């Protein structure tokens, strides 16, 4: 730890509010039914969401799901982040007004949409109803959101505060996808669906695996961009998923390190579906916007290896912690490395599995991705708190894998996804004497991420003991129905599980509860740690208790600072465009 570190008590740690969103690739399992049309992908995606949300017994009463509340980005009106309102709809206007988010806010008696409950009937009938209603959203009992995004089903993990929790909740999303596929396979009269955890069809289309990190607002965004460009352009050598084919359409035969690299056109920007930027500026923090920004990272690959997800989240969180520490102390931690052309460097690095290629810096130096990553590792290590177990674990893994890549990459095949995939493809290629343009190699690449266990080549590797694992299958199964304890996802998930019929809707920072007597209460949780298990326990709030008791506990949290209802109880709709991406 350095004296320069602003938080001299601790040093840099991985702990921070974060999460992962995964858009799954989706196909009709019947090859001859594939049309490649958007309408078909959208319809199949709805079936996936409907099947899991409405039919899976783990998600409560059949035919009933919890709505998503799109209004979650609206600001709190009280400077302390807390208020009680009667007869108030929530405001739709988004501002950046100051709010202290240490307390929850509660609105009461807001108008609700009528409940939607599927009619009784067969699975196919419930799904047909869901399709007619275009039900494309559901909130799960682990606090995650499962929904249709563009033409893909997407699993947005609940908010977590450690890299390990992120791995667990990300794996839980794979199980949700598997369960949805199983339900559709078992139902009569609906197509069977195949889901893939990957990022491209190799024909020009890409879909994302996004990371989200809460970051201190006071770090100037220009500094965030400056620091993240070299880090994001190079971290792929440690956490890339690997891909067969070069170029967005894979027209040039070969193998590359990252599945996403070829789809990035800009250094920084707001877009996520075209002209994708290395650093994305989308910033709805779903939290106190005065104190936090949400860093929406769109450049990452879909990872199946748990070590890749673990390292990706851990190393990125540490780099962000370094940025925050720099801001606080005024002393530089991260290396001074400005790439001459980050977008070109991203691609050039991805296209060179030998890791020998250098990329030019603005100051005229030429460095390899290995050198740039080592500079980051050394800078972060020098200021990190190694007494924190996860921080030490991440730094050790980062260091060991970097060393393996520098000396003998094959040693990292159990922990670096692109190396694992590359090794597999190379052995297959060598045995059959194939060249990189062979369809069998492209098929292996695609089928690596097939989430059907019997079809998944990744699962074959895992079952053969060829990849390291961090969490047990049992832990993953439990995580599907259990929210992380460390964030508001705990309260959200527990209420969804134990009060499904009384949770009218939830968003990331809002939960609307409807009591039997018709009264409704809207709870705003502007700090992602409000609603965590420790917070609930300190408050004496048991999410499994009867709803009146839950409401009473929430009111107690609010009681100290209750405000008089304001005159501006404007009506508003809870429906809007999806702000979460």
């Amino acid at each position, binding site marked *: 730890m350095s004296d320069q570190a602003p938080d001299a008590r601790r040093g840099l740690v991985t702990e921070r509010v974060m999460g992962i969103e995964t858009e799954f690739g*989706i196909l009709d399992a019947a090859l001859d039914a594939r049309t490649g049309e958007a309408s078909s992908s959208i319809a199949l995606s709805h079936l996936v969401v409907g099947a899991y949300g409405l039919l899976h017994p783990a998600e409560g009463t059949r035919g009933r799901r919890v709505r998503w509340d799109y209004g979650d980005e609206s600001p709190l009106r009280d400077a302390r982040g807390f208020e009680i309102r009667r007869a108030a709809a929530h405001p739709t206007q988004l501002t950046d007004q100051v709010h202290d988010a240490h307390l929850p806010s509660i609105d009461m008696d807001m108008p609700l949409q009528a409940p939607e409950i599927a009619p009784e009937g067969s699975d196919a009938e419930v799904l047909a109803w869901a399709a007619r209603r275009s039900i494309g959203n559901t909130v799960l009992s682990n606090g995650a959101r499962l929904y249709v995004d563009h033409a893909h089903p997407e699993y947005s993990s609940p908010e977590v505060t450690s890299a390990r929790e992120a791995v667990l909740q990300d794996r839980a999303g794979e199980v949700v996808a598997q369960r949805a596929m199983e339900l559709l396979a078992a139902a009569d009269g609906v197509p069977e669906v195949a889901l893939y955890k990957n990022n491209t*069809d190799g024909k020009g289309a890409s879909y994302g695996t996004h990371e989200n990190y809460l970051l201190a607002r006071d770090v100037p965004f220009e500094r965030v961009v400056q620091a993240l460009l070299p880090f994001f352009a190079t971290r792929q050598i440690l956490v890339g998923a690997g891909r067969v084919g070069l170029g967005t359409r894979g027209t040039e035969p070969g193998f590359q390190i990252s599945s996403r690299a070829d789809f990035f056109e800009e250094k920084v920007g707001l877009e996520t579906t*075209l002209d994708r930027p290395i650093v994305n500026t989308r910033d709805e923090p779903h939290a106190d916007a005065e104190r936090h920004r949400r860093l929406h990272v769109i450049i990452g690959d879909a990872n199946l290896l748990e070590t890749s997800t673990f390292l990706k989240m851990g190393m990125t969180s540490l780099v962000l912690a370094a940025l925050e520490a720099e801001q606080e102390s005024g002393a530089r931690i991260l290396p001074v490395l400005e790439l001459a052309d980050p977008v070109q460097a991203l691609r050039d690095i991805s296209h060179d599995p030998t890791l020998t290629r250098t990329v030019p810096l603005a100051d005229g130096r030429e460095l390899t991705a290995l050198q740039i990553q080592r500079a980051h590792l050394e800078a972060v290590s020098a200021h990190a708190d190694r007494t924190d177990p996860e921080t030490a*674990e991440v730094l050790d893994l980062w260091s*060991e894998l970097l060393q393996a890549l520098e000396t003998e990459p094959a040693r990292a095949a159990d922990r670096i996804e692109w190396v694992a995939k590359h090794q597999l493809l190379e052995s297959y290629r060598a045995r059959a004497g194939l060249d990189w343009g062979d369809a069998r190699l492209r098929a292996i690449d695609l089928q690596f991420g097939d989430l059907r266990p019997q079809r998944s080549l990744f699962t074959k590797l895992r079952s053969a003991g*060829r990849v390291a694992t961090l969490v047990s299958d049992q832990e993953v199964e439990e995580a599907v129905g259990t929210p992380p304890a460390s964030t508001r996802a705990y309260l959200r998930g527990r209420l969804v599980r134990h009060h499904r019929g009384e949770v009218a809707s939830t968003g990331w920072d809002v939960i609307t509860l409807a009591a039997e007597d018709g009264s409704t209460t809207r709870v705003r949780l502007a700090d992602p740690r409000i609603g965590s298990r420790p917070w609930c326990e300190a408050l004496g709030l048991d999410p499994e208790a009867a709803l009146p008791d839950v409401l009473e506990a929430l009111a107690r949290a609010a009681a100290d600072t209750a405000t008089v209802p304001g005159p501006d109880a404007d009506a508003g709709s809870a429906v809007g465009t999806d702000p979460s*991406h």
Partner: protein
Amino acid sequence: MSQQSLHGSGPSDDENSSEETAAGGQVFASAQGADDLLDEIDSVLESNSEEFVRSFVQKGGQ
């Protein structure tokens, strides 16, 4: 970590570290193991790779 060590055999590892000590338990599997794995891939790989790859068409996302 609950399952097994993240850390594979590296230069700093014990001299006596054998093939079994790598993370995951058997990373440096035998050549026979590698062949078995390739055979297994053959057994589950889509039978018509050309057609499978051609039919794998996605809409762009984020």
